[in-house]
């Protein structure tokens, strides 16, 4: 299985944000998060500052990939939807394409059926945008040229406090 590179160009980010915004309005979800299947956040909407999107992305991608492995043991290619129900907040996790997943966080103001319906629509739109994005060059503008040794050092330098 080959994993594709993901690039979010500025114009695509605007389009994805619009789709996520519409999804939140239609489904009455509190927040939506687009992540890649290795757990890295790509876009978000309605996310409050207190929400740790990095951790949520890593854990949701882990749960999704573990569930996909379970599905394969049952002869399915994957389970395309995961639903975690809490007392107040719930999470709906669904496939966008081979590389990305859509997370929706919602409460009692909506239902899982509504979320599922509109998540499917949003996923189709986002999948199309990412497909177009893949055809464009990965490194453009400031990132088009190779890095100098000094830039390399700064970009990869971690120091203890």
């Amino acid at each position, binding site marked *: *299985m*080959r*994993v*594709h*590179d*993901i*690039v*979010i*160009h*500025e114009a*695509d*980010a*605007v389009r994805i944000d619009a789709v996520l915004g519409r999804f939140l309005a239609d489904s009455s979800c509190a927040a939506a998060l687009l992540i*890649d*299947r*290795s*757990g*890295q956040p*790509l876009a978000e909407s309605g996310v409050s500052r207190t929400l*740790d999107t*990095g*951790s949520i992305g*890593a*854990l949701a991608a*882990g749960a999704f*990939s*573990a569930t996909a*492995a379970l599905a394969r043991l049952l002869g399915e290619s994957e389970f395309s939807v995961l639903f975690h129900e809490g007392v107040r907040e719930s999470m709906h996790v669904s496939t966008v394409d081979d590389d990305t997943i859509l997370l929706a966080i919602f409460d009692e103001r909506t239902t899982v059926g509504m979320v599922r319906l509109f998540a499917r629509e949003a996923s189709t739109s986002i999948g199309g945008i990412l497909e177009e994005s893949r055809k464009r060059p*990965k*490194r*453009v*503008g*400031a*990132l088009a*040229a*190779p*890095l*100098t*040794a000094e*830039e*390399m*050092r*700064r*970009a*990869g*330098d*971690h*120091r*203890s*406090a």
Partner: protein
Amino acid sequence: MSIINYAARVINFKVVYYGPGLAGKTANLQNIHQRLPDGNKGKMISLATGDDRTLFFDFLPVSALGVRGFTTRFQLYTVPGQTHYNMTRKLVLRGVDGVVFVADSQWDRLRDNVESYRNLDENLKEYGLNLATIPLVMQYNKRDLDRIAPMDYMEFLLNRGERRVPSFEAVAVDGTGVFDTLNTVSRLVLVKEFGQVQEAGA
């Protein structure tokens, strides 16, 4: 597989700490988490069993200074080292940009290192990757213990052949070699992604 987000001006990389059980992969991340300033790290998550063995992965997001107006973020993961968790190791390797192989230097763990290294090779191939080209750093851990193999022997076991990769001695629990390892794998990942300008005299 790196992710470039031009809108958020962020470049994301995934680095996986691989190696046999109890070699010190989690200890590396714990030490990085303890020592990095708050602004350069996120929350560390450990999915472990009751006796502190890694069950699924540890996760720690860290960021460096950045380049050309973009923040460079590295998502650090560990895998469970125990042999029977191979399915889980494969899942964690998805989208990996660079690997740190944490080897246990003790004589009686050398076979485990070699088996884990072979296992890494097999699992990378599942994603169309291989040990000959992926950014890789060897870390020979537990150099403070008594019954350990000499560095030459560790290199002979795990770092020979056509491609010699950077290697470091380490004592992950006290931080020795931990940041050298992290900074080196970070730069290798950046070179692979962007290429490096060949400067005069370099």
